[in-house]
C-alpha cells in the first residue's frame, strides 16, 4: 500500500509518493486465474525480453508484453487490467513462437483481456468490433477496396465466410447471445455516451 505523505501541494504529493512495491498490493488469485484461463505458465518467466524483442507492437508503442507477464507473476492485477497497453497486442504469436521458457505470452494477454472485460474495462473500438461481428460475422467486414483487390488477384469478390454465406450469421449471433457479449457491449457503449 502506498503510504500517504501529506504534502500540501497535490502535484508534489503525486511525484513524491511512495513507490515501493509491497506484496500486500498483489492479488492472491490473479496469477492462478490467468493461468487457468490461458492454460500457459507465466510463473516460469525469467524476464529475458525475447517476447518484447519479437513483438511488432513494442517498437511502435509503450506496450511491453514482458511487463504484463511480470505483472501476472507478482499478482499486480490492477496495474495489468487498467493499463490501456493491454489492448495493443495484435495476437501475432511471435512471442509465443520464440519464448525460450515455452510460455505463450499471447495467451496471457488474452486471459487478462478476459478478466478486464469482466470488470468492464475494455476500449470502445473492441466493443465496436463485437457489434460488427454480431452484424456481419467479421470484425473487419469485407468492403469495396478489398473486393476489388480480391478480383484483381483472381479470387471471388466474397471470401468463403459469412460474407458469401450470410445464412450462418444467425448461428454466430446465437453464440454471442449465449455469452451475453453483444448485450454487454451495447450496454457499456451506451453508458459511455
Amino acid at each position, binding site marked *: 500500500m502506498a503510504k500517504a505523505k501529506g504534502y500540501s501541494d497535490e502535484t508534489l504529493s503525486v511525484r513524491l509518493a511512495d513507490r515501493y512495491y509491497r506484496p500486500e498490493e498483489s492479488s492472491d488469485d490473479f496469477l492462478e486465474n490467468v493461468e487457468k484461463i490461458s492454460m500457459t505458465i507465466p510463473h*516460469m518467466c*525469467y*524476464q*529475458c*525480453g*525475447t*517476447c*518484447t*524483442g*519479437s*513483438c511488432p507492437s*513494442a*517498437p511502435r508503442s509503450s506496450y*511491453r508484453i*514482458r*511487463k504484463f507477464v511480470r505483472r501476472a507473476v507478482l499478482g499486480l492485477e490492477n496495474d495489468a487490467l487498467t493499463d490501456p497497453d493491454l489492448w495493443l497486442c495484435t495476437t501475432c504469436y511471435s512471442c509465443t513462437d*520464440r*519464448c*525460450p*521458457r*515455452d510460455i505463450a505470452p499471447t495467451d496471457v494477454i488474452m486471459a487478462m483481456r478476459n478478466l478486464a472485460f469482466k470488470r468492464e474495462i475494455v476500449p470502445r473500438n473492441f466493443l465496436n468490433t463485437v457489434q460488427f461481428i454480431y452484424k456481419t460475422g467479421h470484425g473487419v467486414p469485407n468492403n469495396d477496396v478489398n473486393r476489388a483487390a480480391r478480383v484483381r488477384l483472381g479470387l471471388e469478390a466474397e471470401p468463403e465466410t459469412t460474407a458469401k454465406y450470410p445464412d450462418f450469421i444467425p448461428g454466430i449471433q446465437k453464440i454471442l447471445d449465449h455469452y451475453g457479449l453483444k448485450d454487454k457491449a451495447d450496454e457499456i457503449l451506451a453508458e459511455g455516451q
Partner: protein
Amino acid sequence: MVDEAKSQKPRVGVYICHCGTNIAGSIDIKELEEFSKGIPNVVRVDEYQYMCSTPGQKKIEEDIKEYNLTGVVVAACSPRLHEPTFRTASKEGGLNPFRFEMANIREQNSWVHMHDRQGATDKAKDALKMAVAKASLLEDLYPKSVPVEHTAMVVGAGVGGIQAALDLASSGIKTYLIEKSPTIGGRMSQLDKTFPTLDCSQCILTPKMVDIDRHPNIELMTYTEVEKVEGYIGNFDITLRKKARGVLTPAEAEARGIVGGGCNGCGDCEGVCPVIKPNPFEMGMAPRKAIYIYHAQVVPLIYTVDFDSCVKCNLCVDICGDKKAIDLEMQDEFVTVKVGTAVLAVGYELFPVEKKTEWGYKRYDNVINALEFERLICASGPTGGKVIRPSDGETPKRVGFVLCAGSRDNTGIGKPYCSRFCCMYSLKHAHQIHEKIPGAQPYIFYMDIRSFGKMYEEFYYRIQDEGAKFIRGRVAKIEEDPITKNLHVITEDTLLGQPVDIELDMVVLASAVQPTAETTHVRNLFGISCSGDGWLLEGHPKLNPCGTTTAGVFLAGVCQGPKDIPDTVAQAEGAAAAASIPIHVGEVELEPYFAMCIEEKCAGCGMCIDQCPYSALALVEKDGREVMQVTEAKCKGCGTCGGFCPGGAIWMQHFSTPQIVAQIDAFLLGGEQ
C-alpha cells in the same frame, strides 16, 4: 556364532530410524514400532534418531549378541546410502553381513508422502513386513576377491583425458590412452586464449601433449576407437579398432623391416596430394588434403590418409620415397587389451545452432559460432589471427556476442541446461576484439552473466571496464541487410524496458554444447547410464561425481556435464585417483550375488546360455552328464537366467526364489506362508 545362527529358528532384530524429522515427520514411529513387535520371527524392536550414527550402530552390534539375532532389518533411507554402514555394523556384531536387510522408508516413502501420515505409516508397515520376511531366510554369503589388472584405459584425449592419463601413468600404472581423432588435444587445442588469465591455450596444453607422447607408462593410440568391452572391474577385456591410417609410424615401419623409415612429419605428401577437403579442426574454414595433419603441433606428428576422399593416385607414395611411410592398402586392425579400470573423457560438441532459425546461423554470412570465432582470432588459425567478416573479408568494428544461444531453452529445440562456459568465453572474446581491432565495439547480449569461478567476477569487471556494452536481453531475432550484409540484432533492453535494434558487422553465437553423437555408443559399450539431458551419469551427483554406477568405470570432463578447463582438469585428477585405487589395492571384492546351478535339477538343456548378457554360463561335463556352470566373476547377478530356467535349476544368491516369494506373501497375506 554363524553356524549356530544357521541351525536356529530365525530371530530378527528391527531398527527404525527417525532420520531427524526426515522420516519421523511423516511416519508414526511409535505405531510402526508396536506393529513390528507382532511380525513373525521378530525378537527385538528398537528405534533411534539417527541409526547411522555410532550409538545407532552400537545398538545393532550389542543386540546381535544379546538377542542371538540371525537377521537384522533397518527401516531407514535408501540402501544405496547406508547398506554398507549397517552391513559393517552387523559384521561387527558377529553376524554375516549379508544377513542384513534394509527397508527404504525415506526416499520411497516419507519424502514422497509428506502429506499423508497414516498412508505413509501403513506403507512403512508393508515395507517392514517384507524386509523381515526376507531377513528370516537370508543366508551367509562370502564375497569373492578377484585380482585387478595393473593397467588402466582412458578413452578420449582432450584436456580431461590427457590429465587423467598422466596422473594414472605417473602413479605407476600402465595406461592406454585412446583417441578417435588423428591427434590428441580435443577442443582445448582449438582455442586461442583461455579465461580468466588469458594464457595461450596451445602454449599451456602442448607441454602436456608432449608428456603424453614421452611417458614410459602411456601407450597412446590415436585414430582408434573402442569396439567391444567385456569383463568387469579389475578385468576388462577391451577390443580396440585401430582405424586404417594409411601411414606408418617409424616403429610400425621398423616392424615391417623398413629400417629408418616411417612418417617423420615432413609433409612432402601433403604438398603433392591433389585432393582438397575442408579441415574440421579449422571448423571448415581452411583446406586440408586427403593426406593431412590437423595443425602444426599435432601429437603424434604422423600424417593420416582420409580414405573417403583419397583417389589413390599414389603421388604421395612416390614422394615419400625410401621412408615408405604410406600404405594405401592398409586395413583396420583389432587389438584386445586387458585393463583393471577405465576413465571416459569423450567430451562434447556444439549444439547445431542453425536449429534456432531466428538467429540466422548458416543463412547469414556474418553470423558465426564461438568455435569459429576462436579459430578466426587464433594466430595459427586460417586467417593468421586477423578477424574478418566472412561476407567481404573486412575487419568488423561492431561485433555482437549472443549468449545462451540454444542453452536454457525449454522449447524442445535447444537445451534446458546452462552450458556453463559460454558467459566466460564470450567475455574473453569481447576482450580479444578490443585488443585486436582498434576502435572496435563489442556488444554482449545476455540474460545473466554467470561468472562463478575463482577470479571470474573480477574478469567480468575488467571486460566491462574495457568498454564492452552489456545489453540485458535475450536476442529475439537477427535480420540481415541484403546489400551490406550487416546484421540488425533485435531484442529488448530489459533494463530500459525498450526494444533495441543494433546494427552490427558481425555476430558470434555462444552456442550451447551437447554430448557428441557417439556418446550413446560409448555409454552402451561400458554399460553406464546418462541423465535426462544425455550427459554421462555420475555415481552420485554430490558424493561420487567421478564414478559411475558400473564398478571400475569413471568419468572426466564435459562428457559428464558442461564444465570449463579448470573443472575438467580437477575432475580428471579425481577420476584418475579413484580409478587407481582398485589397481593399487590389487584386488576387489565382488558382491556374492551370482547365480548358482542346482545340479540335481539342471537338465543340461543349455537354453540359459544364450540368455546371459555377460556370457557367464557354459555347459560342462560332470559325473557323466552335462550341467550348467556359472563363471562367478563374470556373473552380474542380473537374474535373467534365474527367471528363465524352465526347471528352476538356477539359484540366485541373495535374491532366491523362496526369499522373493516370502516377501510377496508377507505383502499379500500379511506374513503367513
